[in-house]
């Protein structure tokens, strides 16, 4: 079974440009998460989808970030316009989905997209 995949693996753009990151979760996983790791710091949560709905977007840094998951399958994360501080590694994770309060699903991570904003 294929794991979580992310595209592209690397992206180098100039400040002010737009970049779209894509995540394909494991087939059948309802939960999809976006995280990012800025250089030297911890991995931080950005957004959580349950199927096509945004369950929690409290980690999104500002309105330059837009995430979508149309149809509840793959997800995109668009940064427009990109700023220098957006550089980092963006991870996507997915989990099957379980009953709230009784079961916790392991989150499977993709390899990440390394974004460099010049």
């Amino acid at each position, binding site marked *: 079974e294929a794991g979580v995949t992310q595209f592209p693996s690397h992206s180098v753009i100039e400040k002010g440009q737009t970049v779209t990151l894509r995540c394909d979760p494991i087939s059948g996983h309802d939960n999809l998460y976006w995280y990012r790791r800025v250089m030297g710091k911890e991995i931080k949560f950005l957004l959580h989808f349950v199927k096509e709905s945004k369950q929690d977007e409290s980690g999104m840094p500002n309105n330059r970030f837009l995430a979508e998951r149309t149809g509840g399958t793959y997800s995109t994360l668009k940064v427009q316009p990109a700023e220098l501080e957006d550089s980092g590694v963006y991870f996507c994770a997915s989990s099957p989905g379980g009953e709230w309060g009784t079961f916790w699903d392991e*989150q499977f991570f993709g390899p990440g997209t390394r974004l460099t904003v010049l």
Partner: protein
Amino acid sequence: GENVGLHLPTLSVQEGDNSIINCAYSNSASDYFIWYKQESGKGPQFIIDIRSNMDKRQGQRVTVLLNKTVKHLSLQIAATQPGDSAVYFCAENRDSGNTPLVFGKGTRLSVIA
């Protein structure tokens, strides 16, 4: 604010020795803790987890210890191998169910052959 952190940023261990990676947390309400391993160019990979109603859990060559009194979590790796070289993150899940993880900063483990 409350967060999950790590005592040591780097750790060098001789091959064959045991490794201990530590993590401190401050949210006493956290009920689930996970250790992840991240190798270069890859995403975090689940190693082992533990619930707050336990103080020890063992896997293959790995053991996680939880001390709720001092809010401390540790990962022990027995007979450390070169393939164990990676960055290790602790993470907490502050609510039951499928909710976002809160990660610590990570500890880089280097195994000396």
